């Protein structure tokens, strides 16, 4: 086969005006017409007409054919640029993590929007960019399987599918899908300061829907640390995770949140585990105080701050949430007492010292006593006789 298309008949260029779609169809309606590499050159007119671009002429996109002198045209045409109409999205893609992938791995408009002659508007239920289709579209590469062209991004689609966001999406399209947090065209790595999922930007991103939580968090000591550039400071995703997003009412999430606080507040977690509260949650049960029950979840303030739920002014009210008859004495209890710290918990320190001494003393004395007795009695010649007697 030669490099030139062979149609049923040859269209001869006689007019000076660009060819219309019907003219193009004289060749491109024929399923048997193939390119040099064997791929069909068919463009289905009905599918194209039904697409969002159906009102356009072929040469609106294939601009180099508008002024072509000879038909059939050469097989290699200029690359269609969506940017000529869709400037902003195309520029966004070009600067995005997807657009900057090397060589053939770089995503094209059609990677997400579908076959070029059949692109549907995002409002179309069948469109790969319809809100409820987006997770599946992204999941082609982010689903843990090799995507088209062996592309493979971080596998998060499966995590998202189990999230409360995905469950909510089944009921309302107000719930977020991938593009609500990551944007659609100009998707940036989370390490990029301009990315909406860059940690310091996350409160604003989540806050677009969760306004009250954003307001409360914004005043917290955590938000101040985050703004000050503390890379370890928590933001929404630190506790809620990015994609898995479990329901906060679930035991599993509540127990995991305790451990999450403990990644920074190590001593607080260790002493919490020494208390009844921490022992019960370590056993996997939640109806006792967890970090956020006393310290609040979003509006965490330092103890010295009068707004803090555990400040001296507010402590009694906080304890009474679970212990309604709590007294001033009651709230002197140290939920984070450290038996190894004589400065902060002197009574506990000396009580622990006494108990350690008691245990060691009793077991050393009776251990030796028992051992000696055992050896002596085994070697007591009269023992066997007595047993038999």
């Amino acid at each position: 086969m030669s490099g030139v298309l062979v149609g049923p008949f040859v269209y001869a260029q006689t007019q000076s005006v660009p060819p219309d779609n019907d003219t193009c169809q004289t060749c491109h309606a024929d399923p048997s017409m193939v390119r040099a590499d064997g791929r069909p050159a068919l463009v289905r007119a009905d599918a194209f007409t039904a697409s969002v671009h159906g009102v356009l002429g072929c040469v609106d996109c294939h601009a180099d054919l508008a002024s072509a002198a000879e038909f059939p045209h050469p097989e290699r045409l200029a690359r269609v640029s969506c940017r000529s109409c869709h400037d902003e999205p195309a520029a966004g893609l070009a600067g995005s993590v997807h657009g900057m992938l090397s060589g053939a791995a770089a995503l094209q408009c059609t990677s997400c929007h579908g076959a070029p002659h059949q692109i549907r508007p995002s409002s179309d239920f069948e469109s790969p960019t319809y809100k409820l289709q987006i997770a599946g579209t992204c999941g082609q590469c982010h689903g843990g399987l090799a995507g088209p062209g062996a592309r493979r991004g971080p596998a998060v689609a499966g995590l998202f599918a189990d999230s409360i966001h995905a469950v909510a999406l089944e009921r309302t399209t107000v719930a977020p899908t991938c593009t609500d947090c990551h944007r659609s065209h100009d998707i940036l790595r989370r390490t990029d300061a301009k990315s909406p999922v860059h940690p310091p930007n996350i409160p604003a991103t989540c806050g677009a829907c969760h306004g009250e939580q954003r307001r409360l968090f914004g005043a917290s000591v955590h938000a101040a640390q985050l703004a000050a550039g503390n890379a370890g400071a928590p933001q929404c995703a630190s506790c809620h995770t990015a994609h898995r997003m479990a329901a906060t009412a679930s035991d599993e999430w509540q127990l995991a949140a305790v451990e999450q606080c403990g990644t920074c507040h190590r001593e607080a977690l260790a002493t919490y585990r020494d208390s009844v509260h921490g022992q019960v949650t370590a056993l996997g049960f939640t109806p006792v105080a967890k970090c956020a029950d006393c310290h609040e979840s979003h509006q965490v303030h330092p103890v010295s701050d009068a707004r803090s739920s555990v400040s001296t002014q507010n402590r009694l009210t906080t304890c009474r949430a679970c212990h309604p008859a709590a007294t001033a004495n009651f709230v002197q209890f140290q939920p984070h007492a450290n038996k190894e710290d004589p400065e902060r918990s002197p009574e506990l320190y000396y009580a622990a010292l006494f108990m350690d001494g008691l245990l060691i003393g009793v077991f050393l004395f009776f251990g030796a006593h028992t051992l000696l007795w055992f050896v002596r009695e085994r070697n007591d010649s009269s023992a066997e006789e007595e047993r038999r007697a």
Partner: protein
Amino acid sequence: MPEARYVRRFGRAERAQHLVLIVTFLGLAATGLPLLFSDAAWARPTARLVGGFGVTGTLHRLFAVGLIGVFLVHVGSVVARLLSGERGILWGPTSLVPQPRDVVELCRHVQWFLWRGPKPAFDRYTYWEKFDYLAVFWGMVIIGGSGLMLWFPELFARFLPGWTFNVALLVHGEEALLAVGFIVTIHFFNSHMRPRKFPMDMVMFTGVVPEGEYARERPLEYARLQSASTLEARLAPPPDPALVRLARLGGLLAVAAGLGLFLSIVVAVLSR
């Protein structure tokens, strides 16, 4: 050949109290240890098996009520005997109160352990039996008191400062370790598993001891009974074989449960 003559050592009430003590003690340990060692691998499955947080806590409190109850009944019976004018309870050879003789007997016993002297002659209660007995009083005050504080913190906080609850939680757990460790390693050995008693001394379950054994183990008490001509009144028929079989089975289960608890403590401590 079983001996025909037995001497009665423990009455029905004392044996019943010991039985309740066994059940409530093991129950308290089994429902409390998962919380104390909540980070151990066996803690979560055990707590779930028992029925979760609520059920475990309820059982722990039920056993506690049982143990406190039997303790109060015992103390009440001792007070009643005191009030009735019975002598020898607070002092003397038949008393459970530690006395200078106990120090002497301990020293002589240790000398015997070391082949440095003859085996000492004991009276009704030996020094290790007194320790076991009085350890329950100490334990009841420490564990029982701290347990009640933790059960009703709001009530106790009306007059106790906050730090006492920190101390209460600590000593409740530490004393529990002491109690379980002591019962399983020391009491089980001293009273049941040492070579002469192995595998089990049945006296606390049947109440009676073969006369010969009694005379050998508690020569002073035996001699006193003889000289006061009260031995006849203390003689009893051999225990019902069915009772002995039942006691062996129950005792074996209790020992197995105790060893199991002790083993889980060891596993938890070693894997920390």
